[in-house]
């Protein structure tokens, strides 16, 4: 699974844990992936699978009282981030690696103007005078297609709609030309039409700026539209990794298959022909993460599971060129109907 040029971000065997009243939760349980410069990587999985935590771990934004990176390595442009001093980490955030979050309604500071929130990032990292920073902020607002940008600089978040606030977040994140943009469910809180606009915007910006994007989502539709490669996560571990085309054409992991089958199809042709099928959900529950998981994390819910699956965790191996899975029964899965 190596990219052509040296990857800009390398995550190796990341383990992130949280301390809760019920014990230690292994939110990320041995995740590794690479991100090449300019690439768009999607991380998919249901709520609680550890995708957001992975993102927060990269930027070391896990509150120390809540949890920690227990082990593993995160290399950005060759530098090891897990052992980096806090001051240096701070200069990376918002500058070389930026992050946008799910809730645009609450992610902007209500008492500061839009202009201030973008410009302060520029001043902090690029050390330019305030005037210049504001001008840059205005340019960024134009870039994300917010009309009347000069006036918007003096406005407050509550005067903007959800979609516009997310654009502002994107503008803020890109204001210092980061190498990597981590987008944690950027469109989940927005309604569908706005979703489409934001995703288009992100693609367009990617073309313009060449920023690598890590797009975290639970929505396979978003993944299909926007990403180049996909990592599917389950219970803190990687289940499958492939190019977007390969994943959708031939999902190899039973979980991925389950996810695909669960997508409601608005298929008028099938309707007319009479081949509408039931939505198939994946039976069972996500495993409790306070105990170490014995065997494959998905085994309890998997239709293909064998004795071995319950006892021994399958290694993550390349099943096809550029397409890797963690499953003992890949052959059987491939052979069965999609």
């Amino acid at each position, binding site marked *: 699974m190596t990219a052509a040029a040296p990857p800009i971000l390398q995550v190796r065997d990341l383990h992130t844990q949280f*301390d*809760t*009243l019920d014990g230690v939760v292994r939110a990320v349980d041995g995740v590794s992936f690479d991100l090449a410069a300019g690439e768009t990587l999607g991380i998919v999985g249901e709520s609680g699978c550890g995708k957001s935590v992975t993102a927060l771990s990269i930027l070391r934004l896990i509150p120390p*009282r*809540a949890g920690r990176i227990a082990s593993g390595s995160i290399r950005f442009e060759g530098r090891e981030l897990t052992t980096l001093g806090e001051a240096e980490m701070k200069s990376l955030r918002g500058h070389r690696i930026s992050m946008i979050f799910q809730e645009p309604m609450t992610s902007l500071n209500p008492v500061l103007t839009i202009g201030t929130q973008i410009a302060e990032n520029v001043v902090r990292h690029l050390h330019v005078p305030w005037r210049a920073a504001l001008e840059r902020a205005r340019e960024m607002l134009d870039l994300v297609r917010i009309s009347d940008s000069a006036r918007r600089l003096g406005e407050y978040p509550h005067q903007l709609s959800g979609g516009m606030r997310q654009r502002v977040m994107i503008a803020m994140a890109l204001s210092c030309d980061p190498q990597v943009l981590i987008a944690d469910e950027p469109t989940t809180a927005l309604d569908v039409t706005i979703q489409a606009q934001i995703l288009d915007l992100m693609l367009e910006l990617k073309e313009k700026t060449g920023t690598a994007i890590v797009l975290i989502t639970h929505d396979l539709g978003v993944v299909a539209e926007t990403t180049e490669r996909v990592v599917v996560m389950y219970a803190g571990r990687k289940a499958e990794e492939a190019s977007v085309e390969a994943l959708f054409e031939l999902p190899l992991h039973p979980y991925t298959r389950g996810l695909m089958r669960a997508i409601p199809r608005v298929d008028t042709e099938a309707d007319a022909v009479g081949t509408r099928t039931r939505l198939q959900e994946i*039976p*069972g*529950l996500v*495993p*409790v993460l*306070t*105990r170490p998981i014995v065997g494959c994390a998905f*085994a*309890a*819910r*998997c239709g293909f*599971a064998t004795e071995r699956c*319950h006892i021994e965790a399958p290694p993550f191996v390349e099943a096809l060129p550029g397409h890797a899975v963690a499953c003992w029964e890949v052959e059987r899965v491939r052979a069965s109907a999609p």
Partner: protein
Amino acid sequence: MTVITDDLVPLRPRFSLLTAIRRNPTIAFGTVLLALLIAIGVFAPYIAGDPFKLSPVSRLRPPSERWWFGTDQFGRDVFSRTMYGARVSLIVGLSVAAISSVLGLALGIACGYFRRIDSLVMRVMDGLMAIPSILLAIALITLTRPGLGIVIVAIVIPEVPRIVRLVRAVVLSIRSQPYIESAIAGGTRNTQLLLRHIVPNTLAPLIVQATYVCASAMLIEAGLSFLGAGVPPEIPSWGNIIAQGRSYFQIAPWTILIPGVFLAAAVLAVNLLGDGLRDRLDPRLARRL
């Protein structure tokens, strides 16, 4: 066959006093301290001597084996007076808290429910709150002959507005909830609505606020007595004792400092109780390690 393993959580954990104490140290400490002081007040006649006994021969003696807290300028036993003083402060504190809670609850619900009463009553409450409590209390007391009952009433009046505000706020916020609307649409009668939905939701913040009112009342009573406008000087109250010790403070500081410590302890106990209860009862505060 897939086996789904869940963690089996015991349905009702056994109540352990030790765990309760460990999880709520402030409540525990406050309760214990308060209980101690109440015990002192209740059993004063048995543990303390005669608070009224004058003994001109033994004036202004420092604390010693015979007089644990020393004597005042009339030779009275400060220990005994302090023990009896607990009664007044606690009676005043608890009665004011209880009475103003009941009054505040009634008025608050009335305001939250009936618009017409609301504006009038709230204006009056705002007006009362504009006057500093101790001034209001003093002013009310000087209207009649001083006495324990008058002091209690005079302190209740400045404390009620706060509670009315609180209850009213809770009532208003609950009334606007969708589930109340559906209950009303379903034909639930007002009284049922009140009893089953509204009042229970007011209880938690009300109890917390009542503890603060109790602390405040004790402080105001002591202040009033200190200024000479509170409980009549014959009845030993911590405020009185301190007031009477003023002139001799420099040579006999124990007459002031010791009752002062007890007063502070009482207020502290009630405050801790209030804080602990508030932390416990506030649903927004999730427990984080």
